[in-house]
């Protein structure tokens, strides 16, 4: 019965726009959206470049990108932690246990996903377009924006997948953010903490918001995919 009660309290927290809860939600969104944006700006051109150019070690680069998609968040967290800790090479920046550190950790997690999946998509399109591109006398660097634009719907789906990964991840942001109340506490780390403290209503409330968010993102991906199929052929 206590769990049912917790669910009731959780729903009222969500519906009454509880200040603590929404502060956590807003920070989570800020961190993950910024991380995905940064990862996209680097990852999409990187993926397209790997698709377009032939260079020594290209096969290895593709394998590495694909493998990095499954990078365990705690390993990403550990790496960023070591880089940003006082004794680390970037220690002077003083970023450890700040939202910036969390953004960096999530970029490390999301970048391989965006780069690897966009590489696949762009390569597929290139196979289809290549003869026409050569016929139009296009250089490889001129092909890149054309391919990225023509892959725009697929890239949007990939972006949503990246956002899903970033927002649902807990290990890395816990390690480099520190789950400091009001500063670096995001949904996932708060759920872990509140659950271990026994404060189930807040944990559940955050869980509901997180679940809703992830479902919305997936619904978005599905709708985009369907619309593309219908409109663009």
């Amino acid at each position: 019965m206590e769990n049912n009660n917790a669910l009731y309290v959780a729903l009222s927290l969500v519906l009454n726009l509880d200040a603590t809860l929404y502060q956590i939600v807003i920070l989570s969104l800020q961190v993950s959206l910024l991380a995905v944006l940064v990862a996209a700006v680097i990852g999409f051109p990187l993926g397209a470049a790997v698709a377009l150019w032939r260079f020594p070690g290209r096969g290895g680069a593709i394998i590495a990108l694909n493998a990095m998609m499954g990078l365990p968040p705690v390993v990403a967290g550990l790496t960023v932690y070591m880089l940003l800790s006082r004794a680390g090479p970037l220690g002077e920046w003083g970023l450890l246990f700040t939202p910036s550190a969390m953004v960096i950790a999530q970029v490390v997690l999301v970048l391989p996903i965006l780069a690897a999946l966009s590489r696949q998509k762009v390569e597929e399109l290139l196979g289809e377009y290549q003869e026409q591109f050569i016929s139009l006398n296009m250089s490889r660097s001129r092909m890149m924006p054309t391919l990225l634009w023509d892959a725009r719907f697929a890239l949007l789906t990939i972006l949503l997948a990246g956002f899903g990964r970033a927002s649902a991840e807990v290990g890395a942001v816990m390690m480099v953010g520190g789950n400091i109340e009001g500063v670096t506490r995001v949904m996932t780390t708060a759920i872990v903490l509140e659950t271990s403290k026994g404060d189930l209503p807040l944990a559940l409330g955050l869980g509901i918001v997180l679940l809703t968010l992830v479902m919305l993102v997936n619904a978005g991906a599905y709708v985009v995919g369907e619309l593309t199929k219908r409109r663009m052929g």
Partner: protein
Amino acid sequence: MTSLNVPMMDAALIAPLPSLHFDDVAFSHQGELLLGPCSFTLDGVGPTLVMGPNGAGKSLMLRLAHGLISPTQGSVSWSCGERPRQAMVFQQPVLLRRSALANLTHALAVNNTPRKARMPLAREALARFGLAARADTPARVLSGGEQQRLALARAWALSPSVLFLDEPTSALDPAATKAVEAAVQEFHQRGTRIVMTTHDLHQARRLAGDVLFLSGGKVREHTSAESFFNGPASSEAQAFMAGELIE
């Protein structure tokens, strides 16, 4: 159909067409000789129809001429020295995932056409090929015939001196085929060198100024359309005309 039978020689003489030279050109892939070695010159007014059975090397020859692939032996050159402006229309039109209009403005942008000139040129080309009403339609939801006309409009907007067409009508119905043939005539009258492959004898009869006949990766005959259709000299072409299976 009458418009297709008008003599095509007059207008093409206005501007000198760049002539194409194949000098001992051969192409092999993984040790297998697929084309040539062959030498010929296309310097007539055309249109040149490249004919031959499936697997004769027609498409390969077109790709070598257009520079999509490089010969493994010999050289392809043009009378004007440098590579003339050229375009190619493929059997399956390759269209970007954008509107019909955006497909043309993209090609013009790639071609370094000044930004202000792109839109009017693109609209003019769409209108010329009966696609004005389809300007904002995504190119890939157009019908097969419309897609091929869009590919022709794209080539038109680029004002090439040479146009290659690789069996542009093989997937089209008679009405769409007729539209493509009319477009080929327009290019020809504008002073564009046309090099087109087909395995449709009737189409070749309607369009050809001269015929390049290939079989088994070799050029068997290059002659005027008139003499080719009156009686080809090579035994392979005779067999092809007679509808026989040849190697």
